């Protein structure tokens, strides 16, 4: 059974790079363009009887940004304990702490090398 990841980012490039890397590592990837879209996708997966093993999300997104998205995630039973990876830029220290407070599991700095992404994934997933 391949593991499933939800990748949320408004930048098509970033989404693409994250998806590609995770797919290489054997994940099935679901993409969303912002926080709201992410929540809807999550619900869709749950209604199909499947579940998401990993969530990777950007912090700056229209409609529902990363912080808000993470808070909502932690409020839903299906994603209460799911590992959540934040994609942050170097200059966003405070944003990262905010994310952490909202319930993020780990973070990775953009731009990232694919191996680093997989290493971090390895730390939060068995």
């Amino acid at each position, binding site marked *: 059974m391949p593991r499933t990841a939800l990748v949320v980012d408004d930048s098509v490039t970033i989404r*693409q790079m994250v998806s590609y890397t995770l797919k290489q590592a054997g994940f099935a990837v679901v993409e969303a363009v912002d926080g709201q879209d992410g929540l809807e996708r999550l619900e869709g997966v749950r209604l199909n009887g499947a579940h998401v093993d990993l969530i990777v999300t950007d912090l*700056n997104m229209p409609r529902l940004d990363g912080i808000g998205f993470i808070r909502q995630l932690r409020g839903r039973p299906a994603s209460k304990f799911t590992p959540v990876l934040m994609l942050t830029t170097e200059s966003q220290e405070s944003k990262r702490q905010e994310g952490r407070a909202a319930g993020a599991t780990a973070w990775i700095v953009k731009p990232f*090398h694919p191996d680093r992404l997989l290493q971090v994934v390895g730390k939060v997933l068995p």
Partner: protein
Amino acid sequence: MSLKAWIFALGGWRRGKRLEELREQVAAHLPLLPVVSAQLRDANRQVEQAVAKVGANFGRMAERAREGANEASRILGGVPESSGGSPVMGIDGLLSSSRATLEDLLSRIVRDGEVCHKLAGRMDSLERHMGHIVKALADVDRISFGNTILALNAKIEAAHMGERGQGFELVAQELWIQSQRSNQITEGIRATIAGLAGDAKSAMAEVGDMACADRDRIRTLERQVQDALGRLERAHQDMQESVAEGSERNEALAGEIAGAVETMQFQDRVSQQIGHIVEALESMRAAVAVPLGGLGGDPRDPHARGSEAARLLAGSYTMEAEREVHATALGEQAAGEMALSDVEIF
């Protein structure tokens, strides 16, 4: 009116004129800010699309490389029974079993060679036995000689003893006969042995020939099998090397793609920067528009379209896309290809 008042009024009139000129100039440029923003946004969008295309290609490349590696692996290693499909013996497996067969053949050949060799050895021991027999013959010789002597002795004694030796004479006689007999027997044995030796020698020669012939044939076979094994080995090596090379190339490719993945993310950064610039332009416009009061900066103001600044800007374009963005921003035409939603009018 006093001179003071007159100068003051003149100054005011001049200031007003200056202001009027300024107002005209700003009015000419301000509407162009949206055009610049639109251009920035458009450029950003194009870059994003280009990067996205490249990214999609990566996925496909990686997929193809992986398939290629799997294919080579299948051809070389075969498909094991456990994989669910029908098992296929790969080249590796075929080479292994061919090699095993050849080596088995070789060891049989060698073993047969050893048998022939042993056979030749048996012949040698036969020869040795012959030697022993010949030696035994010598013993027999000695005995018969001894017997003869004995008989002679006896006769001599008898002769010496004269009359008294009559009885002994008989014994001596018998001994003599015995000894003659002995000698005959010995001769017979000797002849037998000679015949035996002759037979053995010819038998040995025959077997030796056989063994020789076989030995040569065996050696030829051995050589052929060794050659075949050698060629098999080389073919196997070649195959493994080319598979290894293929693997290395795939790895290199994967590495390069990984590097590119990191680099391509810079597009996102650039995109954000452009976003900031556009925001800055907007606040600039807002900041200027208010004091000039009434200067809405509407790009569709015919004043703007025809202005010097607009003409200068338009003159700098080199691409059709740029002109389209310009025209739409200035409301000149509803550009067919360009959807208005691509450009934000604020």
